[in-house]
């Protein structure tokens, strides 16, 4: 599960948002949408802990995996300084991915910010399964939106939203999606990833109004990434020891009906 990947490509694709293409055949073969890799961003003890990133694409043919990341602190800043041919230490793939069911309506993906990463991978797999895929993707402004079209098969319907109105729907991605539902969008199954407040809102709305089958991919600070430390707890409907589950192990993808956000 531990391997050294080589940087094949690194590109800044949106404001502080980078694309990494890594060569690591085993990771490329084993990764499933929703899983993540736990990256050691430097050799010193600062930053000390690994950093988790969703696999945004994996090609067993070329032996490569894709990662998108946003610079938010010291670890991601170091990642952004990587150069072609640098090596990085990766642990993974980890966690449980999305589970797509047999559904009648289209598969709708709702992404906030860099949360789009795992959904790009998922979209490609769903298209391969001949599903109708609709992506809602929003950010603060158009400058922060990744050029997702480049990374998606042609069948996927893309709906952009920018809170500052600079492109697509003027408002949050949740609002964009809600309006679409109100206007009659059919939803067979739903997958969401993004900042916690956005997920909270979607899960809440879904509970109150829609009751679509909904899976969410969650983030929580992690130490081990493999289930050993119990650091990445998310509250679930349960009690005793099982009042919390591990984002790294039982997640990062959870059934929205089960988590308490």
């Amino acid at each position, binding site marked *: 599960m531990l391997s050294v990947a080589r940087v094949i490509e690194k590109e800044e694709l949106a404001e502080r948002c980078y694309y990494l293409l890594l060569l690591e055949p085993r990771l490329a073969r084993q990764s499933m949408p929703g899983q993540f890799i736990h990256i050691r961003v430097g050799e010193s003890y600062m930053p000390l802990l690994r950093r988790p990133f969703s696999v945004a694409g994996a090609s067993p043919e070329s032996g490569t995996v894709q990662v998108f990341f946003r610079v938010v602190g010291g670890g991601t800043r170091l990642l952004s300084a990587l150069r072609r041919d640098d090596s990085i230490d990766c642990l993974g793939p980890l966690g449980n991915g999305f589970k797509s069911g047999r559904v009648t309506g289209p598969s709708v993906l709702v992404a906030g910010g860099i949360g789009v990463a795992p959904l790009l991978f998922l979209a490609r797999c769903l298209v391969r399964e001949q599903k109708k895929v609709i992506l809602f993707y929003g950010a603060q402004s158009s400058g922060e939106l990744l050029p997702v079209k480049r990374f998606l098969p042609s069948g996927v319907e893309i709906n952009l939203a920018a809170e500052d109105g600079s492109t697509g729907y003027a408002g949050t991605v949740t609002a964009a999606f809600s309006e679409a539902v109100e206007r009659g969008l059919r939803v067979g199954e739903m997958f969401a990833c993004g900042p916690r407040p956005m997920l909270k809102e979607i899960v809440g709305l879904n509970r109150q109004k829609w009751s679509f089958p909904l899976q969410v991919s969650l983030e929580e600070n992690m130490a081990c990434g*493999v289930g050993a*430390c*119990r650091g990445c*707890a998310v509250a679930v409907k349960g009690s005793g020891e099982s009042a919390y589950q591990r984002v790294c192990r039982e997640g990062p993808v959870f059934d929205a009906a089960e988590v308490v956000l």
Partner: protein
Amino acid sequence: MAELAVELGPLKLKTPVLAASGTFGFGEEYASLVDLQNLGAIMVKGLTLEPRAGNPPPRIMETPAGMLNAIGLQNPGLAGFLNKELPRLRYYGVTVIVNIAGDTEEEYVELAEELSKTEGVAAVELNVSCPNVHKGGILFGTSALLLENLVKKVRHSCRLPLIVKLSPNVTDIAEMAFVAEKHGADIISSINTLKGMYIDVARRAPYLGNITGGLSGPAIRPVALRMVFEIYKAVKVPVIGMGGIADVDDALQFFMAGAAAVAVGTANFVHPPTIPSIVSGLRSYMEAEGLTALEEIVGIAHR
């Protein structure tokens, strides 16, 4: 090949490098990543009588060369451990040390008693960094008197080798070690985490769900090493040294300070094969230096 097996009083270990409690889960999590044969033992996550949910998240925050954790003893409870985790651990063939925790002396005693009846547990490690609910929440491990009473009672009911794991948040750790030894500890573990915190400036509030947490990792190594050095002078029982160990040089510092064995915690998260690599580093060191037993350098920095 250099002999790495060690005897810590009544406790025999294949290697002198253990996995510290709470950092290696119940073994299973790392089984596919780390050759468990290299581990002297796994000290499993702190066990309580009843299952515990643990603290609200966030439970972890990184700090300079260290991390804070406030897991809060999330664990399956004694029955869950005996039914689910222990059989699996025994299957891996790894030596199991059970780290126990409680709110009252009675809980510790009951745990020690039950574990003493159990096959496949090599030793009990008393985690004394827990608040005593009967004494206004003072930690057992920060009062010599509470520690004395606890160790005495547990010793009485515990037929397994008894390890007392000290809290570093004290004025005089050597005194605590002395008290633990005097009242029956076979082995001293040192150290648990330093109490620390982190404030989320944006939210103007403590970051961790539990407000404070335990600091571990390389940042605390100089403090941990000094404490092992002081404990070695104060007691005769063997010491398991820990706190920030990440490579063989770190481990050697602890042996030279007086540790008869070492445990690795946080570094497992950073680099899962840390323990095997320390074990093989120790082997090379012993060969290069012509040592037949690690004992020859234990405490050598005191001379």
